[in-house]
């Protein structure tokens, strides 16, 4: 296989994997803390992409300002959706299925409102207006300014989020709620307040991820929905509620969709149109053989190591 193709698919894997990680972390956060598999997360991603697009058409070309704007708008929509839909529902002590259906419904409503607006102002399949520049070129590799925006921004946000979760009181409260809600309340954790912060973080990250996605490729109102399947695959691969697992899962999905797809295409002649099937295959395989996800495997490994230390 030509080296150019190989390296190009690895670069794409890294780029897409970082974006999946940003999207999946928000999803895992709501799943772990609020106990809601939020399908409307997809529309927050699309919304972020469109906020960036509209801002760029209005002449905003500072990328950092654009990302901050997206974070604020989607975080606000996420908080609003909690206040208007999930919180009133929660008071009726619904089953998890009710909550999933509600998130589906909310997602559909947001998606078709977006469709109407996009249709009205003719924003189908547009790319965010950021001039494409080549920042690095060699015989085998071309890296654009987009790569240098997408990958470091995602990594910085992932690092910031993990610092927040591990070293701040808010982070400990979130993890405590994810672990044992009743005990967290006994310890005086203000559930409502932590939920709001969770929605702000999850929504904001989805928006930023959507904006970066829109810089990387053209967008339409289905962008988030198509991405969310890969994102769910990353979350499942990470064991549903583990943050480290989710990040690893996102890169594994990114690699499978690009690098592995490229290999399959080159050696077995598999058509690229099979690419959307990859996340489904991953979800089914993980649920069949490793329902505890990647980190479940690492936890088992660690337990054995500790046992060996304590009883030699």
């Amino acid at each position, binding site marked *: 296989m030509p080296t150019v193709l190989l390296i190009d698919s690895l670069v794409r894997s890294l780029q897409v994997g970082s974006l999946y990680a940003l999207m999946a972390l928000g999803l895992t956060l709501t799943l772990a803390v609020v106990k809601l598999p939020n399908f409307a997360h997809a529309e927050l991603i699309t919304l972020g992409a469109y906020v960036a697009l509209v801002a760029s058409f209005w002449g905003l070309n500072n990328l950092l300002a654009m990302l901050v704007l997206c974070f604020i708008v989607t975080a606000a929509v996420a908080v609003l959706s909690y206040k208007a839909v999930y919180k009133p529902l929660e008071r009726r002590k619904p089953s998890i299925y009710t909550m999933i259906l509600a998130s589906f419904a909310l997602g559909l409503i947001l998606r078709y409102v977006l469709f109407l607006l996009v249709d009205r102002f003719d924003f189908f399949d547009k790319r965010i207006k950021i001039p494409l520049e080549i920042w690095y070129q060699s015989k085998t590799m071309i890296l654009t300014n987009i790569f240098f925006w997408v990958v470091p921004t995602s990594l910085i946000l992932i690092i910031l989020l993990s610092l927040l979760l591990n070293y701040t009181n808010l982070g*400990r409260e979130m*993890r*405590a709620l994810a672990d044992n809600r009743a*005990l967290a*309340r*006994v310890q*005086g954790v203000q559930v409502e307040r932590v939920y709001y912060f969770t929605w702000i973080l999850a929504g904001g990250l989805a928006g930023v991820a959507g904006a970066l996605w829109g810089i990387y490729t053209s967008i339409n109102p289905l962008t988030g929905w198509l991405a969310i399947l890969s994102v769910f695959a990353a979350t499942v691969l990470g064991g549903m509620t583990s943050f480290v697992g989710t990040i690893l899962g996102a890169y594994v999905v990114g690699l499978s969709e690009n690098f592995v797809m490229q290999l399959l295409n080159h050696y077995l002649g598999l058509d690229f149109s099979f690419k959307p099937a990859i996340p489904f295959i991953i979800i089914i395989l993980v649920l069949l053989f490793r329902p505890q996800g990647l980190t479940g495997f690492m936890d088992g490994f660690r337990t054995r190591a500790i046992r060996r230390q304590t009883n030699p």
Partner: protein
Amino acid sequence: MNLLTIDKLTAGYGKLTILHDLSLKVEKGQYLGILGPNGSGKSTLVKSIFGLTDIFSGSIKISGQELVGVATENICKRGLAYVPQRQNIFATMTVRDNLLLAVRHLRRPKAHRALQDAYALFPILAERQQQSAGLMSGGERQMLAIALAWLGKPQIMLLDEPSAGLSPLFVIEIFKLLRRLCESGITLVVVEQNARSLLRWCDYAYVLREGKLAFEGSSSQILADEETVKSYLGVGGTAFSQRIAE
């Protein structure tokens, strides 16, 4: 002086009533035992104090302030702490993160000092600091659970079966520790099925049966007066009276 007063409490879960018109009081500095056979409502009683059940009528007052209707997450601010029987630690977090969560309201130097105090009182936790709490033994978990409650600087600590599932050695360890906490000025309310070992340590006990008060007295009184206890609990009918009689 009464620190905690429970008056005509009727409580349960949904349509199920478990406690019927129960009244009792806890004095400041007391080491109080709540005894009774399985299903007598002991756990429901402490859960009710923490707002984790449905309260149908009656009142629960701490230093004269009403607790019924206060949300669970606001009760620790009133000087109460609760150690549930099961799932009483954050198993996926490290021991240190568990403790840091309990001192999160303090400023950094104070929090650091509180943590050092906890390590002095519970030396095993200092050794296990970086370990995931879920990987500890039953006794170590119980120590961590008590430390979590203790770090909130409560006036009164409620413990639900702290000796359940522990080895006899650890049971003694836990009861010794509780005695020390009581001597440091914390009022204790301990729910136990293991009546004989608790009565050796506590000052006063209430015996519940079918959600009602069956008997009360100082622990020496209860230990001495086996016949009374038996008649309250039904002769030889329950594991509890058998254990008392042993």
